């Protein structure tokens, strides 16, 4: 019984905004199944009473003075944009016909 099906991989690709091809689905399904099988080993030692570590350095809030500092100009911020118009990022339509 595979850990992950081809349909599940297709769903993941959709969630991750990757328009994968049919061929990629075949390849990735097998590879992800193989990888998940290997990494599932973590559950062997992950007992209830062990606290999780999300970060190597214990983090507390880091504050700074709320003062104005130089940032990017509008021109700099738009310099790498795939499309810009009237000093703004131009994006494809966001709403569909029915919305």
């Amino acid at each position, binding site marked *: 019984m595979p850990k992950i099906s081809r349909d599940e991989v297709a769903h993941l690709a959709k969630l991750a905004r*990757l328009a994968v091809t049919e061929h*990629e689905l075949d390849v990735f399904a097998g590879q*992800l199944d193989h990888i998940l099988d290997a990494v599932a080993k973590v559950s*062997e*030692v*992950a007992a209830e009473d062990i606290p999780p570590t999300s970060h190597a*350095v214990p983090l507390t809030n880091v504050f700074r003075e709320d003062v104005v500092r130089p940032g990017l100009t509008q021109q700099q911020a738009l310099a*790498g944009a*795939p499309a810009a118009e009237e000093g703004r990022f131009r994006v494809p339509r966001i709403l569909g016909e029915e919305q």
Partner: protein
Amino acid sequence: MTDLTKLTAAELAGKIHAREVSSVEVTQAHLDRIAEVDSFVHAFLHVDADGALAAARAVDDAVGRGDAPASAIAGVPLALKDVLTTKGIPTTCGSRTLEGWIPPYDATVTRKLREAGVPILGKTNMDEFAMGSSTENSAFGVTRNPWDDTRIPGGSGGGSAASIAAFEAPLAIGTDTGGSIRQPGAVTGTVGVKPTYGGVSRYGLVAFSSSLDQAGPCARTVLDAALLHEVIAGHDRMDSTSIDAPVPAVVAAAREGLRGDLTGMKVGVVKEFGGDGYQPGVQRSFEAAVAQLRALGAEVVEVSCPNFTYALPAYYLIAPSECSSNLARFDAMRYGLRVSDDGAHSAEEVMSLTREEGFGAEVKRRIMLGTYALSSGYYDAYYGSAQKVRTLIRRDFDAAFEKVDVLVSPTTPTTAFKIGERVDDPMAMYLADLCTIPANLAGNAAMSVPSGLSDEDGLPVGLQIMAPALADDRLYRVGAAFEAAREPVLDRVPDLTRGGFVPAGALSPAEAAK
């Protein structure tokens, strides 16, 4: 005249600051070397000759005026991994997604290098977004190992390691999320250091796995790595995870180590790393290295870190999870690639089509793996369990460092493997990071230093040294003492100027053992 590309960074800095040679001459010598050999090494994605020479001239002018050098390595050129932003110079992260992108700002590491008077020769090749162990995942072609053109230079920072092994640069910057500085160092016969997490600012380091990513030095000697380490390290308010503490005195520690005495130092050999699954020549080189440490006066004991065998699976859940989130920023809206913006496709479709075209297979695999591990229903079993393993790894380190000052292991289980050998088998590729990952998960400092050539294939082997967080100086003391006692590995790298590569592996076992 001395071949300037063969000198160490420390030697070059001494000559530049004493006005025996100019930084322009040194920089030009490396640019010439790049022009001569990089067409087949392919360590660089972009060479910035004008920028490097301008920076060199500024150093020469300052030296000429009698000003104190801006840093201990002022005037010594460097190769920068293409994952750190450089204002006005392309930064691609080895990805089609960022092809042609010119960052509007410098990473803190870049800024510190500029302020230290370090000419930046160019940007080095890497696995796409630093995901890989061979540099084969770059969208812009493979980098060849200067020891053998049929073999990988390690990854993800294969370009940085290859550039210094090929004498195209005396220094380079890498980044290490699971071993991407140390494993390339091991397989190219160079020194690579992953500083303590938070020791070097991540501002402007394009994020792969934020809780693990750390920039660090690549060099041909331990002292050179220390000199570069002190330039790039230190607290930065632009990175809230940057450690607000003094930089460990790594240069002083390297100089101390060069005296060749490790009396009083306790070294632990990690019991779980070695033996079955390790290339016999790597294992033998490691055993010889341990004997060498003992001969230098160190007390060597075996230490068990039972949970280290779970580090690899934990890493391949944590890193993909963080990457699936971090790479969501590549949405085709504000910078980078955009395809199919023809009026017929919605923003969401443009996003999906662009990411499909802009990302390579490994990046897609990891994004999907991370998306899966973080999805409800699987979160506890995968990501949650991996975070618990991270706690266990940390506990293993804490217990070990109560008994010893540093831990040692082979850096990677094999010497450089063949180009193409593991590309279709992700799990086989991941095994290259087996020994390097624990230090990333716990945030410790770790180094790979050349331990010699493997007797069966004549290729370099690395000794990994691991120290507690903020004790980076111990790596340098032990590494420098070890290095001083061994014959320099890079003296045996093929001469790339004589019609390309002379295959390694031509050494007899007796020669290799020298």
